């Protein structure tokens, strides 16, 4: 039995960022994970930190703050987690697509996002191997990326250095009120703390249920292709504007629109599909084919490069595609930080800041109401 100030359930990117923010606020933190660090979705996706795919609204505010925090954290905690502001290039081939993209960029600019329109030949100066017929793109220099498993591990390294604990292979089985505190029962015993953070990602609904509450968080599967190490072919993150439409889509059936980028290790990542079929791990070759075709449409030279690996993860999504951040109306002391769908890496630091401020009952950089669990859980 231990008595920390706060218990964080889930050692993924979001849990690690929350644990770090709370540790830096002077609290003693215990992080519990039923498996090992970054063993959930954070170890099965990509590390894009994007503002380019966000429409103006609360998520964009969160994304912009988060992007800045990423660079602050990197300065502060060191450890190389491959953070790099390589920028994105969003292209479109159709006149309707171009019009939509222009419109989105205009709106984003009004919200202080840097979005630069590029036509030919500048486009091909930025991306020499881009398909020659592509003639329109928006360059978002602020878009960045990190290696999420390393980022998670380095944040948790800081938590441990400050006296916090990270307990792996310790599954949470029950959460109950114990006086003014919450008692968390695990396979290893009981822990009590005044505050508990639910950062269980795609499994956050199950954890909420353990506390007698409910969250409608479900998995949205995504496949990613990894090529063999290749010559540097792709300079930015490059994707077709269809991607933004895909991200926002509520359709259950398969969607995909390739996002292509080179990694530090020399491989090229091609992500990602989106489909809602529960926690189904079956390999779907048709998805791999489609992603390959879309990537080649952007970069014809990819045709000669080998696919080396493919993997999938389950994005945690809420019905309205916004993360759930804030205190549970039914279980005081339990704070949710989950449901970030395809943006949990990028949004983790700002989410952690909102959680920290909510726990400390301090004003935050933005009004967190749009993310409140109250939109799904009515207080009794």
């Amino acid at each position: 039995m231990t008595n920390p100030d706060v218990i964080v359930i889930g050692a993924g990117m979001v849990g690690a960022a929350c644990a770090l923010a709370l540790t830096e606020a002077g609290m003693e933190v215990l992080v519990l994970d039923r498996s090992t660090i970054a063993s959930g979705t954070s170890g099965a996706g990509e590390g894009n930190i994007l503002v380019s795919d966000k429409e103006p609204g609360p998520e964009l505010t969160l994304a912009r703050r988060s992007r800045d925090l990423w660079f602050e954290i990197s300065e502060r905690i060191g450890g190389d987690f491959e953070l790099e502001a390589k920028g994105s290039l969003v292209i479109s081939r159709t006149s309707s697509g171009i019009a939509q993209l222009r419109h989105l960029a205009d709106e984003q600019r009004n919200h202080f996002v840097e979005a630069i329109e590029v036509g030919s030949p500048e486009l091909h100066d930025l991306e020499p191997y881009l398909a020659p017929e592509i003639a329109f793109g928006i360059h978002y220099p602020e878009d960045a990326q990190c290696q999420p498993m390393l980022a998670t591990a380095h944040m948790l390294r800081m938590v441990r250095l400050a006296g916090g604990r990270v307990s792996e292979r310790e599954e949470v089985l029950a959460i109950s009120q114990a006086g003014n505190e919450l008692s968390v029962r695990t396979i290893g015993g009981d822990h009590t703390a005044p505050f508990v953070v639910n950062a269980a990602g795609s499994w956050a609904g199950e954890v909420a249920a353990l506390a007698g509450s409910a969250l409608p968080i479900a998995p949205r599967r995504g496949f990613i292709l990894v090529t063999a190490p290749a010559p540097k072919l792709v300079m930015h993150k490059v994707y077709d504007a269809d991607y933004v439409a895909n991200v926002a889509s509520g359709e259950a059936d398969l969607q995909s629109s390739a996002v292509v980028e080179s990694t530090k290790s020399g491989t090229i990542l091609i992500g990602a599909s989106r489909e809602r079929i529960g926690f189904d791990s079956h390999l779907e070759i048709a998805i791999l084919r489609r992603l390959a075709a879309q990537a080649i449409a952007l970069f014809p030279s990819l045709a000669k490069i080998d696919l080396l690996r493919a993997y999938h993860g389950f994005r945690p999504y809420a019905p309205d595609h916004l993360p759930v951040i804030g205190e549970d109306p039914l279980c005081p002391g339990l704070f949710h930080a989950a449901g970030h769908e395809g943006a949990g890496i990028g949004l983790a630091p700002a989410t952690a800041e909102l959680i920290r401020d909510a726990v400390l009952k301090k004003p935050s950089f933005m009004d967190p109401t749009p993310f409140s669990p109250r939109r799904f859980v009515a207080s009794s």
Partner: protein
Amino acid sequence: MTQIRVILNGESITSREGQSVGALLLEHEQRATRTTRQNARPRGMFCGIGICFDCLITINGITNQRACVTNVEEGMTIQTQQGSGAIA
């Protein structure tokens, strides 16, 4: 046995039908097929049966081919590879 001409690092040499690129290189006293991506260390055939992907080499402009399981073909260009190699 049928003689085959191939180009190894820009030089035209003779090989035999059925010979693997790896065996051809050994015949020409060349052990390394490439240098590594991070530390530029020389590497050559290791497992010899297509499992380890250490004997990578550029063949006909395509990078990362395995010398041990690729047989020579008439007119083939073989280029030892630096790191990830170059785009054809």
